[in-house]
């Protein structure tokens, strides 16, 4: 299923620099008067709303607090169902089941791209265009992020999060291994990996149980070997995967395992277990997003000063990292769509975003608080301003993504050579494009 235009991904990634910049400028942070009056016209007394989300345990209380304030303002009752920790592998299944059961949530959080697309295509998600006009979301939220929640021209979601993934590392372990500064080139990264292994430290903590975590390594390697133009073409199937650049990326991918730069048996590891290992000192770094500062570093009560973040060096111009959009959708069958839209508006206000400590907010004027989240703020001001390529499990529908994960697995186990893997990838993508 590919309801989301494949070419839409290129535009999404290309506008990312603007997203990050706008996120720091405060432009459009003041809610338009028209929007405020529109919100005031909604009567929520005695009504109920249900939000379905996947907040981690550190973020959930903040979301609950925002919901309570919304309830106080509108006189309604908002409940929150939460399914943390499973990532995009499980959460959409439950959402889909609830929607089919006829009692779906009024508002739900979802990833953009191919994960959110089916809900728009099936018209389970409300076309929010009238509410965009009513609340002035176009001026409050960065347009490039909105593009990530727009499916075949239908604004079926309101983006709340634009996330870029970088390399979050343990400074103590880097120093112990003699890596005195973050690598500036891919060659330096390999050298750092060798030093870490020599010091008895596993460099990258990644797990392949659901496919998507270890995918972040491969897509980085592909960006390094293919460069931005070809990478984008590969993601939309307009260029063949059976090419030297893809073979080179798979070759490097295998090299990372053979040189023990990823944990032993990485394919069987659960990302939830292995990704925070850099905080525990079991691995040197993780390819992760700014949420890791609260969910891994601060949750472990570790000193933030002991950690750092840098962009994985691609040796290409422009320098890009992997990224994606997340946002809220409104149930087209909700009996309280006006109230649900008012909730979304309340949710994407700068004050709510600040209260939720959204370190990767898509809302103009909201962003990481340097006092509370110094590393996320550092990322947002630095590498976070670089453009991003669409993370591959959002670029591909799940069926193709699973086919791709199987090929990753075969390469790491030595079942498929990089050459064979490139051909197989082309078969997977070709069938998608043809369908």
């Amino acid at each position, binding site marked *: *299923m590919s309801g989301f235009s494949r070419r839409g991904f290129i535009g999404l990634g290309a506008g990312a620099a603007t997203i990050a910049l706008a996120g720091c400028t405060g432009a459009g942070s003041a809610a338009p008067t028209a929007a405020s009056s529109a919100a005031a016209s909604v009567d929520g007394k005695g009504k109920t709303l249900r939000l379905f989300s996947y907040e981690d345990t550190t973020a959930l209380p903040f979301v609950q607090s925002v919901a309570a304030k919304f309830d106080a303002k509108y006189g309604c009752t908002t409940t929150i169902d939460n399914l943390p920790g499973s990532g995009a*592998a499980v959460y*959409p*299944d439950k959402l*889909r*089941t609830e*929607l*089919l059961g006829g009692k779906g949530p009024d508002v739900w959080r979802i990833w953009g791209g191919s994960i959110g697309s*089916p*809900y728009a*295509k*099936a*018209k*389970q998600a409300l076309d929010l265009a009238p509410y965009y006009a009513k609340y002035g979301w176009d001026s409050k939220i960065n347009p490039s992020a909105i593009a990530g929640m727009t499916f075949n021209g239908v604004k079926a979601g309101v983006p709340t999060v634009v996330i870029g993934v970088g390399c979050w590392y343990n400074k103590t372990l880097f120093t112990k291994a003699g890596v005195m500064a973050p690598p500036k080139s891919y060659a330096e990264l390999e050298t750092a990996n060798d030093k870490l292994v020599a010091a008895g430290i*596993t460099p990258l903590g990644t797990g*392949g*149980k*659901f*496919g998507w975590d270890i995918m972040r390594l491969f897509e980085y390697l592909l960006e390094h070997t293919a460069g931005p133009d070809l990478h984008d073409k590969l993601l939309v199937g307009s260029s063949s995967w059976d090419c030297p650049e893809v073979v080179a990326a798979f070759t490097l991918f295998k090299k990372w395992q053979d040189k023990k730069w990823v*944990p*032993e*048996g*990485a*394919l*069987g*590891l*659960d990302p939830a*277990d292995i990704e925070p290992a850099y905080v525990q000192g*079991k691995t040197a770094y993780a390819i992760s997003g700014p949420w890791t500062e609260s969910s891994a570093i601060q949750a472990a009560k570790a000193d933030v000063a002991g950690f750092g973040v840098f962009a994985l060096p691609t040796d290409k111009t422009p320098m890009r990292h992997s990224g994606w959009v997340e946002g809220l959708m409104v149930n087209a069958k909700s009996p309280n769509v006006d109230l649900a839209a008012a909730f979304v508006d309340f949710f994407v206000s700068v004050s709510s975003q600040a209260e939720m400590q959204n370190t990767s907010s898509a809302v103009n004027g909201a962003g990481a608080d340097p006092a509370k989240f110094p590393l996320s703020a550092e990322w947002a001001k630095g590498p976070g301003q670089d453009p991003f390529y669409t993370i591959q499990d959002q670029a591909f*529908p*799940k*069926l193709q993504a*699973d086919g791709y*994960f*199987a*090929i*990753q*697995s*075969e390469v790491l*186990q030595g*079942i498929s050579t990089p050459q064979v893997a490139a051909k197989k990838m082309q078969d997977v993508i070709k069938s998608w494009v043809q369908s």
Partner: protein
Amino acid sequence: MSTTPALTRSQTVRRVKWRGGLVAWAFALPALVFYVWFLVAPAFQSLVFSFTDWDGLSPTYSLVGLKNYVLMLTDPIVHTAVRNNLVWTGVTITVPVIQGLLLAVLLNGHVYGKSLIRTIFYTPAVLPLVSVGSIWGWLYNPQYGAINEVLRAIGLGGLAQPWLGQDATALAAVIVPAIWLRTGFPMLLYLAALQGIPKELYEAATVDGANRWKQFWNITMPGLVQAHLIVVALSLIDSFKVFDLIYVMTYGGPGSTTQVIGTYMYANVFQYYRAGYGMALAVSITIVAIIVSIPYVRSQTRRDDR
């Protein structure tokens, strides 16, 4: 004075039987309504959807005839899943049943701490499968898991493996906890059945000079025929339903190495938005499960009739 003609005896018997039948149906009706509403109707609905291209979310779909069933024949993941189901079924019936039988025979006599041992072996059967899967996932952790740690500690570090992270060992690694879980149930059934074998038979056999081996094959095993049927049939049905452990421990991976029909069906219906195809898989596995259950159901029905 009544004008109704007197009923013959056979008419009276028929009427009583008819009324008795009605009463039975009246009592069964509420349960039947639930059964039809919640099981038969959805099953029929799934059958209908298996002939469509429904994506599982959209309000519309088209009939595609047997296309989904034909597609199954050429889908390499279905082949893998069927093979895995067969391996799973074979191993998780054979090993737990044999282990359960041996344990039951051993525990049937005067054994010190018998209740404790029974409890130890049966407890895994009552644990939630998701918890079991998570626990075993940790045991199998290649770096910090207890299994590899023990192997390293006793000098067998060379045998330490990424058990769940490689095709060669992933399925076997998931089958091990399944065996652990499923040994207790046949043990209990066999223990109950062993109580029903008259002790006099063993005493007579002993007098006739039969050793324990001969007693086992000529008295115990024939005495457990009904238990064998129940244990094997229920284990067989259980095997076709495999889902939880695979889902929790490997998610069908690495790649699709440990996919079984249940997990692949789930992936198609809930993740790939190919509900029609997923339901064709569900219908197929259901038909197979029904066919293999028929001998068990018939035996139970016959016994009830007697």
